């Protein structure tokens, strides 16, 4: 049986439904991410697990025990907050020791474990400082150390990196993942950043409008999006009507979709499987260094193609006619409800 089990979670605020029957299971030691746009219910769900918000209906079990019967302070669930929630009146070490004191851990053990936790997040030198003088990244490290040091049964993280600048976000992201692996704790991570979710997670649960759109590994989420929403929320997706460019028609297909990086500029040496090609006019060309984006207008449809490792002398002026090629196996198909459909593909 799964370690954490959420069953039919429903949360209503008056007339609006924030969570609409969400169910999932998280294994022991798994890094599980709730991904979705703001207002999709991911934070509500996280707060319900923590106990700061009560479900209208549904069950949450942790390690076989009904969690909703347990008051939040006895749930033994660590939490890392978006705004850090570092106690400004306590020193860094006192912040980290705060949860251990509640557990009546002897003073000598507290000292030892706090020192160890601070070393893990590389803040040992700042133990006696007050947090006000520390940077956002350092404050969030305290937050992580404070939540981890009590060895909780589950670790919840509510957009912990969203207030940090881009470079720091990448560093801390890897650190969080490394610490979580070392301790072997089950973690639930909330984010609206799809790249972050792909990078950090064992499995991702994509949510929209209070419902689960898809649960799967990063590869599944990106490679086989279960719905049109997942396809366009995670990464970029070109959506085309079923009849466009004379694509093979298939019953029940309302949209074809293809990732920009699966579109190729037709050249002499294009591999044979890129059998399907279409012609369009370049609208604009964006050079980004490690890649370049090409917006192409073809038969009234607009497509984005990605060119990996563009040569430095590559420049394509607007209005130029070009040919794009694609492998039909890279096409995704969605029905009129936006659900993924499998179609027999011509090789």
């Amino acid at each position, binding site marked *: 049986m799964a370690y954490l089990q959420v069953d039919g979670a429903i949360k209503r605020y008056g007339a609006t439904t924030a969570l609409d029957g969400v169910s999932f299971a998280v294994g022991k030691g798994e890094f599980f991410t709730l991904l979705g746009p703001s207002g999709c219910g991911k934070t509500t769900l996280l707060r319900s697990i923590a106990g700061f918000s009560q479900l209208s209906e549904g069950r949450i079990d942790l390690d076989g025990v009904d969690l909703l019967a347990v008051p939040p302070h*006895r749930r033994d669930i660590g939490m890392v907050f978006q705004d850090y929630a570092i*106690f400004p009146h306590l020193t860094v070490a006192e912040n980290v020791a705060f949860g251990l004191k509640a557990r009546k851990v002897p003073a000598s053990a507290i000292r030892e474990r706090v020192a160890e936790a601070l070393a893990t997040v590389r803040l040992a030198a700042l133990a006696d400082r007050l947090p006000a003088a520390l940077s956002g990244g350092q404050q969030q490290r305290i937050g992580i150390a404070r939540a981890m040091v009590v060895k909780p049964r589950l670790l919840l993280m509510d957009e912990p990196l969203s207030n940090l600048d881009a470079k720091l976000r990448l560093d801390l992201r890897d650190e969080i993942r490394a610490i979580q692996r070392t301790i072997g704790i089950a973690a639930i991570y909330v984010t609206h950043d799809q790249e972050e979710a792909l990078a950090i997670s064992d499995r991702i649960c994509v949510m929209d409008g209070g419902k689960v759109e898809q649960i799967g590994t990063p590869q599944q989420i990106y490679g086989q999006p279960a719905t049109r929403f997942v396809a366009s929320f995670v990464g970029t997706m070109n959506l085309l009507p079923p009849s466009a460019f004379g694509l093979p028609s298939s019953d029940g297909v309302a949209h074809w979709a293809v990732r920009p990086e699966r579109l190729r500029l037709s050249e002499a040496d294009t591999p044979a499987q890129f059998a399907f090609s279409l012609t369009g006019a370049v609208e604009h060309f964006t050079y980004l260094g490690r890649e370049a984006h090409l917006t192409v207008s073809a038969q009234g449809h607009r497509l984005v193609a990605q060119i990996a490792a563009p040569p430095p002398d590559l420049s394509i002026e607007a209005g130029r006619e070009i040919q794009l090629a694609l492998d039909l196996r890279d096409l995704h198909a969605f029905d009129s409800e936006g659900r993924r459909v499998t179609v027999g593909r011509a090789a």
Partner: protein
Amino acid sequence: MSAIADTPRQRSRWQPDFWSLVAFAAWAILILLLLMPLSLVLVSSFRDESGGLSLANWQRLFTSARYFNAFVNTLIVGFGGLAGALLLGSVMAFCMARLQIAGSRLVSMLAILALVSPPFIGAYSWIVLFGSGGIVRQTLMSWGIFMPPIYGVWGVLIVFAFKFYPYVYLLTSGALANINRSLEEAAENLGLTPFQRVMKVSFPLVLPALSAGGLLALIHAIADFGTPRLLGRGFNVLATEAYTAYSAEIGSNLGMATTLSLALILLSMVFVFIQRFMSRRNVYHSNLINRPEKVRLRGFANVAAHAAVYFIALGGAMPAIIAAIYSVRKTNGPVFQPGFGLESYSRIIATLGDVVRNSLVFSGVAVLLIVVVGTLIGCLVARRNTVQTSLLDATLMVPYVMPGIVVGVAFIAAFNTPPLVMTGTATIIILSVFIRRLPYAVRSSAAALRQVGPSMEEAAISLGYSPVKAFLRVTIPLIAPGIIAGAMLSFVTAINELSSSLVLYVGGTVTMPVKIYIAINDGDYGTAASLSTILLVLSGAAIYLAFRLLGRDERALL
């Protein structure tokens, strides 16, 4: 694990019932000390002298020439005070926020002095300088320059302008200093002339602060009863009429006093609503990447700016300064003698020890109550956003618009007859101060709490602290400096409180401000001046402490 398993499945269980208790107690307090007295005031205004139901009082209010005059005069002092405070306050605010003024710390200290000057002593000091026998007037007359004495409506308005300008000044200078300079630069960049820029950008941005400060000045002006009483010389307003109707030795008329009080409350409420309506959309938050710089003026403009600032600052602080000087003048009984001496102080020590003690004890107890109850209700209002707490918050607005005289009259109406007889006790004075100042404490602790944010407490709970423990271990330490600073400021108001105590005091419960009032009426100016000075020193000490804890923020005094 067993502890977890044993807990019955009951989701509301971990919501501490403590807060429901607080809500219950808050309503009990408000009903007993606010709503009940107020409704008795309402009822009493509809009774005639024999106790029967009638509209006689209201009829008199609108038909009697005397009350009609008082009503018009109240509007005159209200708007006159507003205009004067706006003029002086905005000039001061602009100079202090945008210009380099030498000695600006001294100036802001003088503004605080004006704000906390004990009531009555202000009017008295103006008489000392500009009354019929005033020093300045006499001097000018001896030079052959005629100067009318300060009595009458103009005197009242001049005193109000200098007394209430700090409300406008403190709020507006804060707003002016917080306008993002980029906004003004953007307006310049878009081609607006400096005058257009001020009218179209700066002025709308400070309008909320300006109108809030103006409202405070207006409400204080129509509630003020000492100034028109001492300086008015027949210039009556609703506040003085309410006091007269209540305190007349023969034919004391509680029904008329309550009717006049209600008229005063209604008037204040109308102005509050007008101000709310005016600034309904005007909450601006701007980031402060680009703070406005203070300009250094040169030549005549610089002299003029300094002259204006110091004229206003010294004018406002003048009563306090005069009181301090007169407190060390040599006296023989109530009569001043040439030279200086400490007779006034030794007389206080010898005969007025209990008055000083009363003041300290009453304010101390009141502040203690205010802090405890105010913090709890503040937390409730800040954390529980329900219809019930919004109603509580709204009800707490009522004391803001209740002039002290009205609180006094209402308490007499409510607590003079069984079941609850408190008239003549210290308790009634303490409770009147408590209910008047409670809303400020609620506001400030709710504001402090909103700054802390709920995630601090949630972090503590997720680390294993029960909600009550999390509140005590995390929230209380974080808001404590704010609460103590608020307590100090409440102490300043409590110890200077006059108008409700004046209605409620008896021989044994005379406080310092009441004694100052009596002393001035008896012509014992030395005692009045030295008591005022003691009040100033106590207030100054409390403000110093508050600023040490909270950081220097004059606006906290409003």
